């Protein structure tokens, strides 16, 4: 399994379930932190945390679904795997209607649980890397002059220098200079790379 550095946050009101889960996660060399209630996790929560949540759907006080809604409001990016029991089908269905959600039923198969957790951690790590890259691209983009931005848009749109020069009513040579600066400031060598980076700017 690949290292993602993420922490598995276990939120379950049952102490034995929490404790056994953290042991299982440890057996797969995963780091975990346990919380006895949704509120306890909410208090601990900070933006920029990395990892995933193993969240009991049915708990006294704030339920797992309520915690998810709260996290959404906070703009949290942590993937959630819900833990459900036999009787929780209606609750699970209700949750699904409100967005695609990952479920795992008690008692768990260890392989399945660990696989799901691993996937969640990897997807979160991937998202996190994407976000970091997007931030960097955006920062670089900020350093472009208005002219350079315009040239970049045209390049990304697939126009050749001659067309751009005509369109912007400047010389081809000037377009070339702008273009070289854009490539340099954005830290790319090919137009293909520039196109890929531009896609981050739309997000």
């Amino acid at each position, binding site marked *: 399994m690949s290292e993602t550095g993420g922490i598995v946050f276990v939120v379950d009101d*049952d102490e*034995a*379930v929490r*404790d*056994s*889960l953290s*042991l*299982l996660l*440890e*057996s*797969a060399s995963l780091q975990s932190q346990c919380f006895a209630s949704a509120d306890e996790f909410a208090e601990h929560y900070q933006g920029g945390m990395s990892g995933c949540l193993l969240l009991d759907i*049915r708990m*006294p006080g704030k*339920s797992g679904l309520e915690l998810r809604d709260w996290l959404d409001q906070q703009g949290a990016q942590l993937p959630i795997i819900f833990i459900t*029991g*036999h*009787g929780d089908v209606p609750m699970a269905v209700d949750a699904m209607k409100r967005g695609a959600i990952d479920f795992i039923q*008690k*008692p*768990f198969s*260890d392989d399945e649980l660990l696989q799901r957790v691993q996937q969640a951690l990897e997807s979160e790590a991937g998202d996190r890397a994407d976000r970091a890259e997007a931030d960097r691209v955006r920062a670089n983009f900020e350093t472009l002059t208005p002219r350079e931005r315009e040239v970049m848009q045209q390049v990304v749109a697939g126009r050749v220098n001659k067309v751009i020069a005509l369109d912007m009513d400047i010389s081809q040579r000037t377009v070339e200079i702008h273009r070289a600066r854009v490539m340099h400031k954005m830290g790319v060598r090919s137009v293909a790379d520039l196109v890929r980076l531009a896609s981050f700017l739309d997000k």
Partner: protein
Amino acid sequence: MPNSSEHASSFAEARFAALLDAAVDAILVIDSNGQIETFNRAAERLFGYQSVEICGQNVSTLMPDKYSHAHDSYLQRYLTTGERRIIGIGREVSAMRRDGSVFPVELSVGEVATGEKRRFVGIIRDISERRASEQELRQQQERLEHVTRLGTLGEMAAGIAHEINQPLTAIATYAHAARRLLSSDRMDAVRLDDVLGKMATQAERAGQIIERIRDLARRQSPSQELCDLNAIMDETLKLAEVDARYHDAPIVVEMTPGLPHAWLNSVQIQQVVLNLLRNAIEAGGAGTKLKLRTYARSKEELVVEVEDNGPGVPESLRTEIFNPFFTTRTDGTGMGLSISRSIVASHGGRIEVDAAPTGGAVFRVTLPTALGEIDE
């Protein structure tokens, strides 16, 4: 006419004897020593003795051992102090036939004083049949109680299943984890011992839940014991909270410590309270707030209250809901409150419903204490 008065009296006696023999009930007359003087036909049939053979014997011959010893002293006490245990009262006792078989009878005793001599007339009615039908009725009631109890458990099934699933999940997860750690050589004996201990604890936890269900599901004869109401409530809560937690309906417990003891059948009282809590959850749905309260209204009366903040019971229905088959639920049986009421009545208590301050319902069960029966 020399012997006229004697003649008249023997004539009267003959008439009296004829009257006695015509009576349906067994009748006997004893003197102040307990010696049988008269024994009618019905008595002959009932006990299997001939009048001639039993007359002159002590009445205790007709009683099973446990009564016969006491009888002489009862009689003696009555004669000296006038304290009535049975004279003029009539009660159900056991009698013994000639063949030694014991059967239940209703005995009423009257005193006849003729001149110096005190005599007692006993009228005895065989109540074996009445007893049998009473017993049948009681058995029917018990069966119904049993079914209702199972029904209540059925209503609680989802919560119970969830509750048992928790320790099972923990056990399975501990086991998976331990095996993985062992196979990668990261588990030493000390740590393994710790994990095995935790697994055993969880298995016991599951077992306890099942045990509580079994206690309640088991058929029990309605025997009442001197108990602490709060202790019964503690037991009840262990099951009720399983259900309540599942429906996110927290129970606030307000028990008054040091309540006087009472004669209670703990399983039946548990059933009543489980019923009331279940109804409250059913009426109020998820998120209902429940209160379970015990207190003594006086030295003679204990009270258990189950309060909810649900829709309440409209005033017009506050008697009707206790009727058998009255239900407003599509999946209801309407037996819960009816059975609860008869259980409470068999304890000499009563049950009623009122509006709670929150607008919900408050069911109040009043039970007599054991005051006067024990000195504490």
